[in-house]
């Protein structure tokens, strides 16, 4: 599944990131690497969502969230 398909307050683990290199490196520098745990805060809208990883909240556009493969990480 992708991060965009996740549910509010759900915890997910990043499997892979499939975007252009520059964006991927930017995400990695922010700490969104493979294996990172991400908590979705607000994924109600069709487009962007808010999520928390490594202690900080971020707003991610749909075109980013669509390209992050995740799996459920359990509570």
């Amino acid at each position: 599944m992708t991060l965009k398909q996740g549910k509010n307050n759900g915890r997910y683990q990043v499997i892979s990131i499939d975007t252009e290199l520059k964006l991927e490196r930017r995400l990695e520098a922010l700490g969104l690497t493979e294996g990172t745990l991400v908590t979705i805060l607000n994924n109600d809208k069709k487009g962007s969502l808010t999520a928390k990883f490594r202690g900080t909240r971020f707003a991610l556009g749909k075109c980013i969230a669509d390209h992050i493969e995740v799996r459920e990480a359990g509570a």
Partner: protein
Amino acid sequence: MADIINVGFIGNPNCGKTTLFNAFTGANLKVANWPGVTVEKKEGKTIYEGQEFKLIDLPGIYSLSSYTMEETVSRECIMSNDVDVIVDVIDASCLERSLYLTLQLLELGKPVVLALNMMDIVEERGMEIDLHRLPEMLGTPAIPVSARKKTGLSILLHAIAHHKEYDTQGPFIHHHSGMRSSHRHNHHEEYAMVYEDVIEGKIDMIINALAKEYPDTDNKRWHAIKLLEKDKTITDAYPLPLSSVIDKSYEKDIISQKYDFIEEIISEVLVNKSAKEASTEKIDHYMTDKWLGLPLFLCIMALVFFLTFTIGDWLKGYFEIALELFSGSVSDFLASIHTNDMLVSLIVDGIISGVGGILTFLPNIFILFLALAILEDSGYMSRVAFVMDDIMSKLGLSGRAFLPLLLGFGCTVPAVMASRALEHKKDRFKTILVTPFMSCSARLPIYVLFSSMFFGKYAMLVCYSMYLLGIIVAIGTAFILSKIDGSKAEHALLIELPEYKSPNAHTIAIYVWQKIKDYLTKAGTVIFIASIIMWGILNFGPHGYVTDISESFGSMIGKAVIPLFKPVGLGYWQIIVALIAGIAAKEVVVSSCSVLFGIQNITTTKGMESMVATLGALGFGAANAYALMTFCLLYIPCTATIATIQRELKSWKYTGLILLYQLFAAWVVSFIVYQTASFL
């Protein structure tokens, strides 16, 4: 006195770096741009116990790679001799995120001092940071400070002065449980950040190669790591025949191993991590809600708008009275000392009314930027980007562009200035291009006058249609542009949502003062020159100084371009001159019309009747009036706006392009409007 110590302040965005920097330097700072780029560079000075410190505020960044302008600038500055000691400002309330940059800074091999900011928030949340263990693991001093409460500042300067000489780090005390190194060096004694054996092995090989090929290179370990990451700048500068060692980019591994180490640090340093839910999440529950987010934002903006244009206009009224008194007394004074008419006209009609007119906008600008600074400093602005992202991305604009567009209804000058909040150059350009189409308050007098003259009881509706038309043209322009360049990736929203905090008065005061100073000095000089030029065009003719405007160069230009304006229903030289004069300020179109058609008190019922009669005799009817309003809505913005656009884009070429496009849009839309209206 000892040598000046050059200190570079660096940290993540929103870590309170600027607040800390301001706490040291006050408003005494030099703001410039880094050479060649539009990234702001701030420098200041402070003296502590006889030691002078030169402080450089580097841009807020998350990493030291070279993917963005800010990162490249910061890295180059730190690596150069401009910086003796690096102060890494850390938001202690999100230690995990901040430490990534810290690990990168440590690898640079320069003395690093950590300034742990926002310790009060950490305490509030019931968390604790082990301030002994942290320096043990990183090998560098960590000083708790509060930029807002101004505590820990002297200790930080102390640490900087003492730590200046330390370019080696350590000692380190690590307990890497379960990590068995079979590597022949024990790097754990030398470096805070040690990678897995495979990578350390490669680093050693590259260091050996560097020692052979480039023996003078400082800090070979850092260069080796960058080469392993296939960093473009370093790879180009140090070509090495090591394709078997650097067989791929190890950047990903290097990043994730750094984060592994950070996890280790956090687990040892951060006590009581799972504290109560921060209030930020509760506020965001409403602020970023699918349904509530947008109305809440609109309410907040309505309030900002209300304050800007009610209190602002109220104050502006006094400014105008003062200006009138001033220009009246100046002209009386000049008359009393028998100055010649031309000079009086230049000073009073040209300079005072031109520059003074701009000064009357100061209250609006002040209140607007005060409100924006509060919203920005409290952390709300990044939520706006999230709330508006979906709608704006359909137009190929970033979510943050909504704010400048909305402000454009008030005054285009601050609106264009507000576009500075946009991250990408392209977004900024697009936003600045369409912002002037948002009908500003100065255009309202034109609509009111012409709609009440020609449309009677439908006047209100006609006025309103102007605002709609402006929005349609703006949306259309943005949409067409997004279709042309089609670059989606740049709009990929990626923005930190910082903790909400109560705004800091000191930070806001400095921010607003900078904006006002900017507006007064730079825009002021351009407007000064523009006022003189406009005055010259309207008061000089082939026979020198003229008092009758119809003999001026302005009227000659107007008469010359009549054929161009005929198809849009504006082929009257007086109207064209009024439009030219309107470039100084849009309200001037109204006053110019009254002067050019020789009608006094044009806004009174009687004045309007005689104006309609005069215009009617020339064949100027309702269709022409509507075309004129449309043209005023869309054509070249006022000189203050042009000056601001030029300053924000730092390019006369792009400013010229924008003006041309606006003229073009004005002509085309007025043409369509006029031809359709005449046909009906």
